[in-house]
C-alpha cells in the first residue's frame, strides 16, 4: 500500500468509526460502557438464571470464561457482517473516483476491530478489578492471536464484500450463518462437555482454535504451543490470499453491477 492509499485508508477508517459507532452514542464513554453493560447482562443470565457450570473454566468461573472469548468473536462477526455490503453502500465512491476498492472492506474491518478491542481491554480491566486473575503477560501474548483473527476477518470480509456485489442475497444469508457459527464455536460452553464425535468435528472450526488460545493465554497463563497450532495461522493467511485475489479479479467489474 503506498502513501496516498494509506491516507485514504485512514480517512475511511475514521469515517466508519464515526458513522457506525460514535454517531449514535454520547461520545467515547459509551464505547467502554456498552460492553460492560453487556457483560453484566450475560453474567446475570448465565450464572443466576441458567446456573451454567464450566468444568475447565479456571479460577474466575463462567463470566470471565465467556468474556475472554465473547469480545473477539463479536469483533470478528461484526467485522464480516459490516463489510458484507460495504461495496454497494459506497457505490457513489466506486463509480466516480479511482482508488483501490479493497480499502472499503479493510477499513470496515479495521474500524470494527479498533472499537471492539477498546471494549475488550475495558472488560479485562474490570474483570481484574472484580477479582479475576488476568494474566497480563498472556494478554500481550494474545496480541498476535488477535492480529491473526483480524487477518482472518479481513480475508472473509474481502470475499463476502466482493461476492455481495454480484449476488445481493449474501447480506441476507450471512447473519444466520454467523449465528450458526457462533453456536458451533465453544464460546458459551466448553468443548469438553460435548460428545466425542462433535468435539472432533469442532476441531475443524478455526474459531475454536482462536477462542481456546485466548482463554489459555489470558485466563490460564498457559503458553504451550505445538506444531498443530500452525494449522489455523496457515489457513488464515491462505484465506486472506485467496480472498484478496478473488476481490482484485472481480473489483474491475464492480461498476457494471452496482
Amino acid at each position: 500500500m503506498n502513501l496516498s492509499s494509506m491516507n485514504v485508508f485512514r480517512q475511511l477508517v475514521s469515517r466508519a468509526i464515526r458513522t457506525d459507532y460514535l454517531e449514535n452514542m454520547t461520545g467515547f464513554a459509551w464505547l467502554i460502557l456498552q460492553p460492560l453493560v453487556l457483560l453484566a447482562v450475560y453474567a446475570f443470565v448465565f450464572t443466576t438464571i441458567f446456573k451454567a457450570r464450566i468444568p475447565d473454566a479456571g479460577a474466575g468461573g463462567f463470566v470471565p470464561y465467556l468474556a475472554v472469548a465473547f469480545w473477539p468473536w463479536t469483533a470478528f462477526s461484526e467485522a464480516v457482517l459490516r463489510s458484507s455490503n460495504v461495496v454497494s453502500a459506497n457505490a457513489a465512491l466506486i463509480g466516480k473516483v479511482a482508488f483501490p476498492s479493497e480499502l472499503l472492506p479493510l477499513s470496515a474491518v479495521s474500524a470494527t476491530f479498533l472499537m471492539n478491542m477498546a471494549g475488550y481491554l475495558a472488560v479485562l480491566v474490570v474483570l481484574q478489578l472484580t477479582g479475576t486473575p488476568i494474566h497480563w503477560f498472556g494478554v500481550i501474548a494474545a496480541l498476535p492471536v488477535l492480529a491473526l483473527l483480524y487477518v482472518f476477518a479481513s480475508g472473509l470480509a474481502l470475499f463476502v464484500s466482493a461476492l455481495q456485489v454480484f449476488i445481493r442475497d449474501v447480506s441476507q444469508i450471512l447473519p444466520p450463518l454467523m449465528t450458526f457459527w457462533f453456536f458451533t464455536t465453544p464460546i458459551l460452553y466448553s468443548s469438553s462437555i460435548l460428545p466425542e464425535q462433535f468435539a472432533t468435528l469442532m476441531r475443524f472450526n478455526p474459531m475454536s482454535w482462536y477462542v481456546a488460545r485466548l482463554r489459555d493465554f489470558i485466563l490460564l497463563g498457559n503458553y504451550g504451543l505445538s506444531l498443530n497450532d500452525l494449522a489455523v495461522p496457515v489457513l488464515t493467511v491462505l484465506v486472506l490470499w485467496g480472498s484478496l485475489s478473488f476481490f482484485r479479479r472481480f473489483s474491475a467489474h464492480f461498476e457494471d453491477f452496482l
Partner: protein
Amino acid sequence: MEPLVRIKGVSKFYPRVHRPRERLRAFASLMTGKQVVAGAEVLHDISLEINAGQSFGIIGENGAGKSTLLKVLTRVISPSSGTVEVNARVAALLELGAGFQPEFSGIDNVRMKAALLGMSANHLDKHLDKILAFADIGDYVHEPVKHYSSGMVVRLGFAVVAASDPELLITDEVLAVGDESFQKKCIRWIEAFLEQGNTLLMVSHSMYLVQKLCRQALWLHEGRCRQIGDVFPVTQSYLAYHEERSAAESRHRRSLKGDGGLYRVSDFSLPGSTGEGDRVIAFGEDLDAELVLHSPDGRPPVALFGVMRADGTPVYGVASDHDAIEAKMLDDHHYGFRICFNTLPLLPGSYSIRGHAMDPQGIRLCDTAELRFTVSGESREMGIVRLPHRWNPGE
C-alpha cells in the same frame, strides 16, 4: 515525446444486470471468462492520444459515451477491451459531487477527496484556507453536504481539485451548474493552468466553452469516434449535425411553399463546386448561384433567392423584381438568373440556399429548389453573420 494519455481500441460493454437472474448469468460468465450476451456497448473501438500541453474537448449527444470514456481514462472503470495508459498526475471531477458523501460535512469531504487525489495531510493543511477561499461557500463547510445546493457541491469539488496541483485535469460537464461568477473563476483558473503547460480534458455541451478552452476536440456519436481533430471543424460539424436534426424534425410540418403553378425551376446550381458533395467556400469568399426557370407561356418569371442556416432559420432573401433585374432569355421557355453574394459575411457553419420560381408579377411562389453549402473557417464569433463593425478606442 511520450504522450500523456494513450488509449487504444477501447470498448466498454455493460452487461444487463437488472434482474437477479441476469446478475447471476453475468457473474457466471465472468467466472468462466465467457463474453456476456445481453447488454449494451457504450464505447466502441476508441483510440486517442493526448500530449502534454494539449487541451481536448469531448462533445456529443446525451448517452454518446462521453462520461464512460472519462471514467475509463481515470481508471474508475476498466474497459472491456483495449488498453489505457496514463502517465500523469490526474485530478478528475466526474459528475456532480464526485465522491462526496452527503451525510458528512463539507470539510470532512474535502479531507476525503484530498486523500483520494493523493494529497498528504500536510499539503492539505497548507492549502485548506486557499480551498475554502476558492469555494467561497462560507460557514456551509461545516454543514453536511446533503444540505448543499448543486452549485455549492461543485464549488467545493473544484476547489479541492484545483489545490491538488494536477498535470492532467479531467472534468465532466461540471462547470455548468456553477453560477456566472464561479464559472468565470473556474475558466480563469483553467486558462492559467493551461498556460503553465498543463493538460486538460473536458466534456461539455457548451460549444462556447469548448472553443474557448480547447484546441482539439473529439466528437463521440453512439459510442464511436465520429470526428477528431482541431476544435473548430469538429464543433462546427457537430453543431451542423444538430441543426440538421432539428430541421429534419420540423420539415414534415413545414411543407414547402409553392402552389404548383406554371413556372418551374429547371436548373439550380452553385458554380465553382469542385467534385461531388456540397459546395464549400471559405469564410469571406463570394458565393455564386445560378437559377434557370421554365416558363410554359414564355413570359419572364421572377426569381427569388433565399439563404438559411441548416436548421431552417432564414438569413436573407431577395427577389429579381426587388432589384428590377431582367432575366436573361435562354430560349422561348427558359430564363436564366445569376446572383453573386460578395464577400459572404456568413460565419462558418452549414447553410442552404433556395432558388424559387415566382409568377411574372412576383406574387405567387410556384416552385422551389434547395442546395446546401458550407462556410469553412475558424472564428469564435457568435451568431450567423459578421456584422461590419469597428472598435473605437475607449475614453
